[in-house]
Every structure is written in structure tokens, then in C-alpha cells.
């Protein structure tokens, strides 16, 4: 749910990075954090376990600039990817305006991707959202690894509705900002369409 403050002339939107465990959601946010001007970002918060696995969420506030005098702020969240943290994942999805699915391109993670995507659809559904109607983009991460599926294979398996997709290597930053820009654009376009 976007939040428009007419008084402060601010518009706030929430974007959630979803995907299976170790697919690179946190790495996406870390790269964005490292490469953003200090004045455009807030503190990145990671609620992680001692072994650096996301326990609850990562959070990164970003200011993207102004549209017709409105400051646009995007709040980026990741969910914990591991299967048993489902209760926490549901909570993070509350009030989501746009979603990025980070898929792990490695053959070994094909089923984990499918399971996580199905889980996203179910958890959104429980909150009255329909993934097909939400601003949504796909990121095929870890393109620099060996033993990876082709884009065609991934598209067939994970993206039947053909939402925009991006090839990425989040560790080095390839595709990270393209993905963010695409989802932010979709969110703003949706906002333009829908009145309160």
C-alpha cells in the first residue's frame, strides 16, 4: 500500500525481494546500498542469524528523486528465503506495492525456485493480492555460475505470463539496478492508474 503524504509532498512505496534461500536477495540490496549516494539512502538493516542468513528481513530505504514536486521514496525489503521461515515471509508481504522474484539460475535450484514462486503466489493470495496484478519482475541471478539453466528454460518454468526479466550477477552488480528500475517504474505506473 503506497503512502502519499500531501503535506510533506512525499510518496512512499514498498518493494519486496522474494526467492529461495541463498538466491541473492540480500546481495541485491547490499549492492544497491554500496552504489547509492549517501544522501539518497538510509541505513541498511539486516535482521540475520549469526551465520548471516536472513532471519526476518533486510530493509533499505532509498530516495529516487522527485516527480512533479513529489519526493519518491522506495522501501526495499527482502524476505528470509529458507522454507521454514514462512510465517515471517507472510508478514513482510503486507502492504507490498511491487515484487522482485530473484531466481537462482543453477540447475540444482530449479525446484527450489518453483517452490518459492508458488509460495509467493499463495502468501500473496492469503492477503488478497494477485501476483498477476501486482507490479512484478523476474531476476535470473547467478548467471556467472556454471551448470545454469538457459534463459529460455527459466522463462518456461518460472515466467509463463512473461513479466519483464533481467539476467543478473548480484555479487558483481550486473542487472541489479536494471531490475530495481523496472519494478520501481511499474509501481509508479500502477500508482498513476489507481486512485484511492
Amino acid at each position, binding site marked *: 500500500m503506497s503512502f502519499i503524504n500531501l503535506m510533506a509532498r512525499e510518496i512512499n512505496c514498498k518493494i519486496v525481494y522474494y526467492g529461495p534461500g541463498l538466491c541473492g536477495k540480500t546481495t541485491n540490496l547490499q549492492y544497491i546500498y554500496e552504489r547509492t549516494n549517501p544522501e539518497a539512502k538510509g541505513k541498511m538493516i539486516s535482521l540475520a542469524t549469526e551465520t548471516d542468513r536472513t532471519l526476518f528481513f533486510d530493509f533499505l530505504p532509498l530516495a529516487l528523486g522527485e516527480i512533479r514536486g513529489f519526493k519518491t521514496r522506495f522501501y526495499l525489503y527482502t524476505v528470509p528465503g529458507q522454507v521454514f521461515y514462512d510465517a515471517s515471509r507472510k508478514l513482510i508481504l*503486507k502492504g507490498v506495492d511491487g515484487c522482485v522474484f530473484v531466481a537462482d539460475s543453477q540447475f540444482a535450484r530449479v525446484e527450489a525456485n518453483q517452490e518459492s514462486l508458488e509460495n509467493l503466489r499463495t502468501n500473496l493470495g492469503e492477503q488478497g493480492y494477485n501476483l498477476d496484478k501486482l507490479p512484478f519482475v523476474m531476476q535470473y541471478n547467478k548467471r556467472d555460475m556454471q551448470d545454469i539453466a538457459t534463459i529460455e528454460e527459466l522463462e518456461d518454468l518460472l515466467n509463463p505470463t512473461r513479466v519483464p526479466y533481467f539476467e543478473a550477477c548480484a555479487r558483481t552488480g550486473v542487472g541489479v539496478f536494471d531490475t530495481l528500475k523496472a519494478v*520501481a517504474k511499474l509501481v509508479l505506473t500502477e500508482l498513476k492508474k489507481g486512485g*484511492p
Partner: protein
Amino acid sequence: MVNPQMVMYEEEFNQIQTVVDHLVKSANSKSVFIVDKNGQLIAASGDVEHLDTTSLASLTAGNIAATGGMAKLLKENEFATQFHEGERANVYITLVGNRVILVVIFDAKSSLGLVRLRVKKASEELNHIFEKLIQKVQEPGDSPFAEITDEDIDNLFND
């Protein structure tokens, strides 16, 4: 609509700010925040200059969401209040009308009893304001964003 917007108008914003400003003084607290359940800061008052209010807002909402999840599992409707006691700072968190979160940060100059008492009154006032605001938001009208063109959106990403 799948994803309704929350809009804050000047009139209600000023009313909320007045309640929050007053609560800082009447509860003898250091600072007071209003946060929506999705983690966005709505209003703040008191000694907030040196605080990372954006992060605090997000973590508060995460905290309330997690507590709400626990309540559900225990077949409770909601745990409406939380209290965190520190060595120097204490935090009192309460849900207002199940819509927004009121956070009061206070030190030894105040007490939990006083904060609870003052928060009760402020909550009623805030609840009333937010009820009116929600009605206003639901009335049909143009989105404040409707005039924005695709070009405006593109320009945001061109630099």
C-alpha cells in the same frame, strides 16, 4: 482496487501532529512517533533529530507484525501493547485502532504508569482522526498522482 493507497491530507496531518506534540509533553517523554503498519513514518515529535526515524519505523512495524503473528497462532486477536525496558531508554508501543502504531520513547524522567495514562487519551483522539481520514481517502476523487505522465516516470530514471 487491489492495492489501495493511503493518502495523508494537510488537515489531518496537522491534527495528528498536534496530538503527538502534546503527548510528548504530557507524558514527559523524549519522543513520540506514529508509524503505519507497513513501516512508514507518519509523524514524529520530541527529540528526534539524532534518531534514525526511518529505520525505527520499519523495525517497529516488523515488531508489531511479528507480535500480531504470534497472537494469531495463540488465537488472540492482537497484543495491543508492548513495553521494552532499557537501562536509559524505555519504549512503549501500542496499536491505535488496529491501523497505526504509536511509539513513545521515555527515560527515568517519566514512568510507565504516566505514559500508559496519557497514551490512552491520545489513542482515542488519534483513532478518531484516522477514522475520518480513512473515510476521506475512500471517497471517490482523483488520485494526486493522476496527472503524472509516463515521461515523468521515465525522467526519474534517466540520470
